[in-house]
């Protein structure tokens, strides 16, 4: 379970996200949508404990990612926007390094390795050097490292980017299969992807949540694209940046 409450992050005077709240339950896939620069990556990084929020809290499986950071991080598998591969390492030794870093016991290391290699279809490249892999394989190795410690929570930043259509289909199937006993948050630009695999959708625009709805409850007769464009055009919503600038001006005068 992931619970994000009133999350705000400032980079200096720039407001990246403002009062973002949403919730994803076990067994759910939450699609995190938004235009570029809306704050998706920032939110995901905060959930994973990469950096703390300016204010607000994130609970992962009931653990605060700031105060119980290590315990929370142990329960998260995170695939960043660029797969975090060491270009000089071989795939198998990279994955076993990540496994040990994430406290997979030595005895079950081989099992964990074999499982993710099979699940992510990496048999052919297990002994290849990460830096020489194609974009699709890099993405899959990235997914494998997020799964290696069998975490109850998965945070995937654009998991299907750079894959060919067949691979996209495979990865979607894979994510659906993983969802049964996990909580998954994934960000994407691809709207059909959301309607195909997600149970809930959160649309974020200029740092604010503009829509949070279960997919079934979305108005019928409207395509997701229409809903998305409507939500981000945001009538009545001022951007977080504008508001922050106003606050700064008010502070000065």
């Amino acid at each position, binding site marked *: 379970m992931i619970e994000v409450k009133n999350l705000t992050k400032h980079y200096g005077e720039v407001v990246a996200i403002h009062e973002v709240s949403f919730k994803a339950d076990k067994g759910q896939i939450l699609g995190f949508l938004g235009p570029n620069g809306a704050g998706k990556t920032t939110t995901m990084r905060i959930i994973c404990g990469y950096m703390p929020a300016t204010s607000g809290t994130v609970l992962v499986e009931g653990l605060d990612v700031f105060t119980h950071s290590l315990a929370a991080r142990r329960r998260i598998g995170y695939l960043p*926007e660029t797969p975090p591969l*060491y270009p000089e*390492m071989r795939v198998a030794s990279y994955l076993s390094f990540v496994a040990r870093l994430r406290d997979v016991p030595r005895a079950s290391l081989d099992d964990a390795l074999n499982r993710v290699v099979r699940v992510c279809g990496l048999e052919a490249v297990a002994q290849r050097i990460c830096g020489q892999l194609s974009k699709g394989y890099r993405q899959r190795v990235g997914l494998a490292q997020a799964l290696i410690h069998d975490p109850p929570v998965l945070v995937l930043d654009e998991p299907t980017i750079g894959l060919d259509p067949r691979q996209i289909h495979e990865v979607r199937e894979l994510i659906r299969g993983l969802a049964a006993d996990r909580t998954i948050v994934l960000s994407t630009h691809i709207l059909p992807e959301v309607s195909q695999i997600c149970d809930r959708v959160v649309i974020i625009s200029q740092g604010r949540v503009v829509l949070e709805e279960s997919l079934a409850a979305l108005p019928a007769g409207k395509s997701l694209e229409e809903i998305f464009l409507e939500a981000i055009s945001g009538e009545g919503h001022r951007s977080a940046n504008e508001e922050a600038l106003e606050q700064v001006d008010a502070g000065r005068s």
Partner: protein
Amino acid sequence: MKNALVIAGKELQSYFVQPVAYVVMAVFLLLAGWFFFSLLSRFDQILQIYIMMHNVQALERVNLNTMVVAPMLHDLAIVLVILVPAITMRAFAEEKRTGTYELLLTAPVRTGEVVAGKFIAAACFVLGMIVLSGVYAVILALYGNPEAGVMASGYLGLGLLGVCFVGVGLFTSSLTTNQIIAAISCFGALLLLYVISWPAEAAGAATTAVLRYLSLPEHFDRMTQGLIDSRDLVYLLSLVGVALFLTQRSVESARWR
């Protein structure tokens, strides 16, 4: 601690699948060989001259430790000033550039453990290089009669110096995403610590004492003479400690920006 060792193991593995480590090691050992050869030839020449002159008093003063081992250690220390930045520059800068930093900082690992892991790996590499250069000391011991204690003290000094350099290198690497900037600023800092006592004679008494205390060769020199003074150990160890502490703070602070 386990996490630090996991990271250290991975780092060492990475060193040896890339050419940098081999090049650094080869350069270090080649130069060490050249220094040894030239110092020993000079020693031999002086010895021959004194023997021809039947100068017994001078012959008694001719000493392998002061004429070969100590100058060689000083030369190697300078080589380390140049080579250690090349080893440590990648440590954090490269991780930030390739995005693997996100993996490390979101893994259930403390920042201190990341720093410790990187330190252990780089320190092991540098110490390994110094141990290999010890082959010349072994040759001297086999064919000559140097004082083993003095040599050991000198090598201990060189090892501590190398470890200090690694600490400074990790710190500069943690400040930037650019390896070249990391290497050059480390090199600059180390060279400054090397020459910091140069204006000491012209300065007032208090400044002189401070500059002398900060100067690396002041402390190292005593160790090459066989003098292990707790003041020198304290200086070198606290330099490592401060460098690692600053590195940890610098990595941690990156989260807060």
